[in-house]
């Protein structure tokens, strides 16, 4: 017996539409690639989970926290001065700038930031700017190495070595400087240091020019960095970027100009700005900031109160027994100083009740310390605003759409340090 079977044919236009709807699922699977936590271009223990379509990134999720040491909690259990060595380990490429930032924050809490002796302020400024040069040298070097230019990295590293020598002569340590104290710095400039520093400044300018010849007009370098990882102005502000990364996007925001601290008001320097916000701009901004820092250090050395050898015995610490340690000789002979010494060493510098936030223009961006004090020698709560952490937050926004090779350029150009990010 014949049967009738009804077969339904959709309209061809409808079929095409349905096929088009199904298409995205037919495009093959995406590859999830785990970049890090131990990967040469992540400069530490950053992990990025990349979702790749071929070589194109469709999604990027940074995973931070591998280097978390609980610095903020540790701070609650020690006196103000005892926390200084922990700040060395934040941005370990610019330890002296961290020391200064922390000391200034605590001094703001004490209300003594304007009473610092001028020589101390100049020395601190020199430290900050040397740190900036050191950090940017490594930042640019690593950036270049990630893009494949090994030689640049070694050239800049040689220069950093000289900064380490200067730090060693100044503080006794090459990396863990712990140079500042609440109300001053741990020691004055050693004899001959100023000349050594000027010599370095002359040499580093030559080195920067050399790096410039290797990279700035190199076709491959420009191809790899221009229009890659563009962070528009509004995005940069939305994500709270700071430092060179923000300025490369064209936002004129430098805390040294906007909220001047130390002696930056008296110094003459320019703030370089980018126009596009791509990796190339970030590179150029860092190069120019180094030159500006060289200029700043020269000015500081010229104006240094007391001169190179400090014959006038200008103080480098606040002369207040309740804040800084008294001279050792007097401690052993005078009752007053003995009490001061005892109190500072055992209970710490006695802080007023209150809360402050101080943002410092660190090489990587705005390093901020929020301090909540209930009085006494220790903070009740100390929060660190780490620029690297904030700068990395923009990754999921800018990475998708780029090729996998661009990841390394973008990471290199953002110039982050995981010690600070994870704190």
């Amino acid at each position, binding site marked *: 017996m014949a049967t009738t079977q009804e077969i339904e044919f959709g309209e061809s236009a409808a079929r095409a539409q349905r096929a088009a709807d199904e298409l995205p699922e037919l495009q093959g699977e995406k590859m999830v*690639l785990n970049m890090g936590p131990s990967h040469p271009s992540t400069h530490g223990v950053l992990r990025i989970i990349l979702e790749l379509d071929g070589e194109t990134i469709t999604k990027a999720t940074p995973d931070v926290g591998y280097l978390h040491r609980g610095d903020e909690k540790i701070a609650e259990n020690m006196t103000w001065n005892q926390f200084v060595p922990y700040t060395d380990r934040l941005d370990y490429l610019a330890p002296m700038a961290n020391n200064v930032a922390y000391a200034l924050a605590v001094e703001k809490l004490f209300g003594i930031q304007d009473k610092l002796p001028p020589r101390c302020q100049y020395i601190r400024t020199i430290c900050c700017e040397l740190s900036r040069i050191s950090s940017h040298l490594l930042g640019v070097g690593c950036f270049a190495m990630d893009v494949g*230019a090994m030689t640049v990295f070694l050239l800049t590293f040689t220069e950093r070595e000289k900064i380490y020598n200067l730090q060693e002569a100044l503080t006794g340590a090459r990396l863990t400087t712990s140079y500042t104290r609440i109300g001053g710095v741990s020691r004055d400039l050693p004899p001959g240091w100023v000349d050594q520093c000027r010599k370095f400044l002359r040499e580093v300018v030559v080195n920067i020019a050399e790096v410039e010849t*290797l990279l700035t007009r190199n076709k*491959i370098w420009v191809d790899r960095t221009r229009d890659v990882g563009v962070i528009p102005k509004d995005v940069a502000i939305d994500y709270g970027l700071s430092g060179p990364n923000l300025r490369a996007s064209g936002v004129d925001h430098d805390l040294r100009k906007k909220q001047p601290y130390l002696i930056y008001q008296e110094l003459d320097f320019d703030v370089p700005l980018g126009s596009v916000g791509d990796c190339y701009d970030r590179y150029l901004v860092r190069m120019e900031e180094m030159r500006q820092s060289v200029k700043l250090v020269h000015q500081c050395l010229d104006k240094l109160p007391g001169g190179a050898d400090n014959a006038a015995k200008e103080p480098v610490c606040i002369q207040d027994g309740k804040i800084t340690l008294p001279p050792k000789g007097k401690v052993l002979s005078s009752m007053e100083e003995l009490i001061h010494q005892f109190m500072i060493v055992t209970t710490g510098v006695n802080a007023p009740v209150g809360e402050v936030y101080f943002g410092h223009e660190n090489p990587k961006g705005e390093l901020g310390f929020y301090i909540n004090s209930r009085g006494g020698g220790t903070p009740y709560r100390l929060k660190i605003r780490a620029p690297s952490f904030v700068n990395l937050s923009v990754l999921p926004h800018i990475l998708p759409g780029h090729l996998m090779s661009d*990841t390394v350029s973008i990471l290199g150009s953002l110039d982050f340090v995981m010690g600070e990010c994870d704190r």
Partner: protein
Amino acid sequence: MFDNITNWIDGLTAMQQFVLFSGVKIFAVFGVLMTCVAYAVWVERKVAAAIQDRVGPNRAGPFGLLQPACDGIKAFLKEDFTPDHVRKAYFWIAPAIALIPALLTVAVIPFGSNLGAQKMVIADLNVGILYTFGIVSLGVYGIVLAGYAANSKYPFIGGIRSSAQMVSYELAMGMSVIPLFLWVGDLNLSQLVISQQGFVGWLPDALGSVRLPNWLVFQSPMLALSFFIFLVAAFAETNRTPFDLPEAEQELAGGYNIEYSSIKFALFFMGEYAAMITASAMMVTLFFGGWTLPWFGLDQPATSIPGGLLHIGIFFVKVVAFVFTIVWVRWMWPRFRYDQLMDLGWRRFIPLALVNIVVTALWLWIRSRS
């Protein structure tokens, strides 16, 4: 003693002599090439050190000259670890495939004029250049297989990148030499060298003693362009900076060779350096007159043993100069991105090579009519 050997050789049939001398040449060339590979690493490290204001290897022997030996011993003595997840057969065969083509290419390169009655080339093929390209193309399999066999993500990406890269640049490389053979009219590399004797004819006589060797690169602008394309393609073929994407350390943490250890890992490196030396030898032969020098009659085949050795020395020096250049470039430049590399290959060099072929053909046609 020496007479005995000569008599014994003379007593052999032509076939036996051919086998004997070919064997000797193969072993000699292989030995020299492998030594050069080892010392290319030393040269690389020393040049890098000089460029970067460092000292470089200087512990093992004078100037670190024993460093290659130490590296080799170390590579052999390391634990040869095969991860569980790899595809074993391919994993084992890939390093060998990476090295062998680079060694085979040397067979057709005339590395000297002659020693006694023997021509200083292992196989004097009439289609030498075709053989070269056939063998060189095999090199990509080593890397692709390594990437595939490792069965993990970074090597996989490295393998894919390199297959695309090598296939693309092989085209450019192959097409870049066509004008050369149109010009010379022979595919035999020995004949090619012979055609580069003397000085170029196009320089005005007024220059007097300032004369350029009649090397193919100087003979016409088309051939100079050929050389340029060939040089770039050679960088890409040998995975050297600025085209070292397959093994981009900073992106792929090493690329196709991640899962390898011990001597298998070392074989990839030897393959890379052998390829670099072979590519240099090819460029010397094709564009820079091979073993010839136009001065002191050194462009004529040697009639004596010392003359033959001198020709081998000239060839060697030229090759070393190229190896040095390749090393030098590596330490000065960043690397391209994958898409830029492909763009450069397909949209710049291949059209350029095609145009070059047409222009050369037209030029030759016009010249033959006039």
